[in-house]
């Protein structure tokens, strides 16, 4: 089972976890991204996430499909929030369940690494003295 969502509302972590639970599951790995109060020593005020939604959903589905081919996992949930997020809020939750924990760990880590590399979502960091699109410039 895979459950891919992009939302403007706060992500319900407990419900992401419940979605991947099942009687034939032995281990669940969950990654939760949180908005950090600083980046390279500069105080972050808030973040804004922009998305190319159709493509992002496609890419997130394709990450989940690659995972299901590569590892014996049971279920995958990937929820990404967009819009304006404050420090401490949660832009992304990935939950992966499997019969055995190794697959859950490997797949969950693959999912967040792949998401950060390919999914068309952009993060703008707002500081006291301006704003920067993360990773845009060398």
């Amino acid at each position, binding site marked *: 089972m895979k459950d891919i969502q992009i939302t403007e509302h706060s992500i319900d972590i407990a419900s992401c976890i419940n979605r991947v639970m099942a009687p034939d599951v032995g281990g669940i790995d969950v990654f939760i991204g949180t908005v950090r109060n600083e980046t390279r020593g500069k105080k972050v005020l808030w973040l804004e996430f*922009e998305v190319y939604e159709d493509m992002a959903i496609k890419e997130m589905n394709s990450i989940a499909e690659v995972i299901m081919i590569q590892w014996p996992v049971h279920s995958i949930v990937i929820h990404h929030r967009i819009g304006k997020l404050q420090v401490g809020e949660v*832009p992304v939750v990935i939950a992966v369940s499997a019969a055995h924990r190794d697959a859950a760990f490997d797949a969950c880590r693959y999912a*967040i690494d792949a998401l950060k590399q390919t*999914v068309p979502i*952009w993060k703008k960091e707002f500081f006291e003295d301006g704003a920067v*699109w993360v990773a*845009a410039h060398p």
Partner: protein
Amino acid sequence: MRRDYTAKGVILSRRFFFMSIRILAFGIAREICNSSTIDVVFDENITVEVLKALLVAQYPALKQLTSFMIAVNGEYAQASAVISANDEVAIIPPVSGG
């Protein structure tokens, strides 16, 4: 009249009009292009590589990005891919989700 390689609702053609496409721009590309959509018109099928060159000529700030990709119909496109009339084309600056 020759108005070569201009964009933003105008003409990218040497000869006669043939194909119009709408390009979506996201994140910093949206800011560089000062619009979330750019309408361009070509007189022949072009490749992704050519489109990127045209875009950079029109918006030199794109060249300063770490990189940018072109997506066609919601998928990353190779440099050699040919863009067709009804394709959804997007400028994808370096992503930073998560």
